[in-house]
């Protein structure tokens, strides 16, 4: 006759098993779980990194860089001998807020393929919607294993101030990677910066990591929605346009001048991170003609700071012999959407044409 289970024994065993599993999960820390992905296998890879805060966007933000890359179409695309692989690095303007994947910079460069070095250019959107040089460097460092032929790094002054180098949640929650980058590229930052969120062993248990695990699973489930709809963000019919009437303040991060206040070391590291041609682009921004536009260019920048930044970067690029494009005023004010750096599809076309020229001229 089968013995009846005893309540106490069941509870004890269940508790023990759970505790064991919970602590055994610590040892998965070194396993690249994020690389296990349904994308590029069952579902097509995403055209841009996962990013989103609402369920309706069929997308989510997570901190697992492996999972972000594994879900990207880049991870599932074998490089052919005819492919000239261009990575676009940058913030939300590169990622394409309010733009469909086809309307983004990468999308427009791929719609009418151009040639470089006798090959067909295929652009990959590796932008991520936070403005941070450190975040860009982290993505760049990871991206180099995917055989790029060229890097185009679009950035703007807001990414430079050294006061909060680890403010981006993606950076703060990848402390180990950032520590490695600090050592590898000898950056002027402290590995003990309190903004970096190092995980203790306690933080690596299953209970502590349940949110990350759930995000990883949700990312895979959203793959079905990405595959069936091609939607990866919300496209509202109406949105608030970028501010053109500005405050009379000329404050920029509390600085009085920009010398020694910009993270040039991170920029320098990024420019040398991958041994392929790298084009640095000062991305287009909204030049306002509304209230107080004599003091500020837009919501982000007072004129004095932005002018000083442009001059400093131009001098630096010339001194370092970098391929630098200053496209700050390329796009007219009415081609910006909900931010001083977010472009309309037509604005993106203007930028894409400029970059196409640059790609072609780099390797004819």
């Amino acid at each position, binding site marked *: 006759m089968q013995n*009846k*289970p*005893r*309540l106490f024994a*069941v509870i004890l065993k269940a508790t023990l098993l759970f505790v064991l599993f919970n602590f055994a999960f610590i040892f998965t820390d070194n396993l690249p779980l994020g690389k296990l992905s349904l994308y590029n296998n069952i579902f097509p890879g995403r055209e841009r990194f996962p990013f989103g805060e609402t*369920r*309706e966007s069929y997308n989510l933000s997570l901190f697992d860089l492996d999972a972000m890359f594994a879900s990207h179409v880049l991870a599932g695309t074998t490089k052919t001998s005819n492919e000239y692989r261009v990575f676009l690095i940058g913030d939300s303007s590169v990622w394409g807020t309010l733009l469909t994947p086809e309307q983004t910079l990468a999308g427009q460069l791929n719609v009418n393929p151009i040639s470089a070095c006798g090959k067909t250019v295929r652009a990959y959107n590796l932008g991520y919607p936070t403005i941070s040089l450190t975040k860009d460097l982290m993505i760049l460092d990871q991206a180099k294993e995917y055989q790029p032929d060229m890097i185009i790094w679009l950035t703007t002054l807001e990414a430079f101030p050294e006061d909060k180098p680890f403010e981006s949640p993606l950076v703060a929650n990848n402390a180990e990677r950032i520590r490695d980058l600090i050592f590898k590229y000898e950056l002027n930052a402290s590995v003990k910066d309190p903004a970096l969120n190092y995980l203790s062993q306690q933080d690596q248990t299953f209970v502590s990591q349940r949110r990350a695990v759930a995000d990883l*699973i*949700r990312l895979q*489930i*959203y793959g*079905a*929605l990405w*595959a*069936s*709809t091609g*939607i990866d963000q919300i496209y509202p019919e109406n949105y608030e346009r970028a501010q053109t009437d500005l405050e009379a303040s000329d404050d920029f991060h509390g600085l009085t001048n920009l010398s020694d206040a910009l993270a040039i070391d991170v920029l320098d590291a990024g420019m040398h991170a991958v041994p392929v041609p790298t084009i640095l682009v000062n991305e287009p921004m909204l030049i306002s003609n509304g209230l107080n536009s004599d003091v500020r260019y837009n919501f982000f920048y007072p004129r004095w700071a932005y002018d000083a930044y442009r001059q400093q970067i131009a001098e630096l690029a010339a001194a370092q012999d970098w391929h630098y494009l200053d496209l700050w005023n390329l796009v007219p004010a009415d081609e910006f959407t909900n931010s001083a750096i977010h472009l309309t599809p037509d604005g993106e076309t203007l930028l894409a044409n400029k970059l196409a020229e640059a790609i072609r001229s780099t390797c004819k």
Partner: protein
Amino acid sequence: MGLIQIGASILTALLVGALTRGTWRTYALLALSVLAVYWFQPVVPLRSFDFWLPSLSLALVVLVWFITSQISAWKSRINFIGLSIIIGLITLVDLTRYIFPQPFLTGTTPPQFIQFIVFVLIVSLAIFAFTYLSRNNVWLLSLATIFLLSILFILKSPTLSLQASIFFRSLANRPIENASALDLRWLGFSYIAFRLIHVLRDKQLGRLPELTLPEFATYVVFFPSLSAGPIDRAERFAGDLKKDFSLTQDETLLAGQRIIIGLFKKFVIADALALIALNDALAVQVHTTGWMWIHLYAYAFQIYFDFSGYTDIAIGIARLVGIKLPENFAAPYTKSNLTQFWSSWHITLTQWIRAYFFNPFNRWIRGYKSIPSWTMILIGQLATMLLIGLWHGITFNFILWGAWHGLGLFLQNRWSDLAKTRFNINNPRLQTAMQLGGVLLTFHFVALGWVFFALSEPSLSWQVLSVLSGVSR
């Protein structure tokens, strides 16, 4: 019910099951259920309605008990205690307004005490009047049934709900522009109404045994089954309450197993499937046949795991206090015909409709000898399924869903009759193949029916059906 409410329900049920016996168990369950009516009620944008709606639920319970019980039943000790528990706890919930700085048990601050006193007086007068009238008037039971159905009709009809919201907002001098049909989210009223109507109807038919107020009220608002059923029968439920129960290890294990299965079904499988299940947005965003089928399958399994998961949780929690709630699902997607499906999907609702509508309706229609029998079957099936559809909501899509199943049941009935006389399949392999074919056909028929159920507008349903059939992309 969210995870916190489920956790609290499990803990309190464990305590009640382990620590109470006999009548004390009934009192404890009554008290917990009364409090749960308030706690589970979602916040609604109308001021203090998250207090008034549960209070009305309890007032209706007491009212129906008074008019279905003997005139002086309330004077008995057990009923008096039951009444005191209900009134005492409602008062206490209202007084939390003055005790706690933040709302406690209710989503928003309960109304002022003077308003509550007026409410109690009105309800008391109504109970007195109805009880007095009910002495010699059986029609009062019908009137109460019609009253309950009218509330249900208003709540289930988006247009009437909106009008009701506008009315209440006007009364409170609040802007009516923000009024919505969702303003009157009355937790569990569909189930409460059906339980009360069952009692009223059984009383009319002389089938209702005498129930004490604690038994009756606990039956109607029993906290594990308040929000998602099942719809038990009063006499069966009261029978469980009367049984001598003590929580054993075996019982706890069985209950725990059921709860864990339910939690897994609801919070792991159903909630994951919900992310990709067919909805209004996907209906217009998906243009490929294969993916649309996947979203439809996801919906079919999501609704099953969600609902049956909740049922498992309710059955498990109820077991902890000695109540064996009826099953609501019996592997419905493995049934080989639509009649079997409806005998295994939302079983207690189907049985309720069968007992109080389908059977009486069939008896009535059979009185018309001139109507051909197939017409009677068609009308009976259609009317029943339309009623089940309308129970979910008075919208075109629920009507279409009901009609879809009504016609399906009729066709299956005709086919079964035909097959019985024409085909005699003795080959076991062929029988198995027919069985499997039946399961697949039934599942897909049901799944296509969900296209009406899941979406809000017929136009969206046509759009989805055309993509599913490959007609449009």
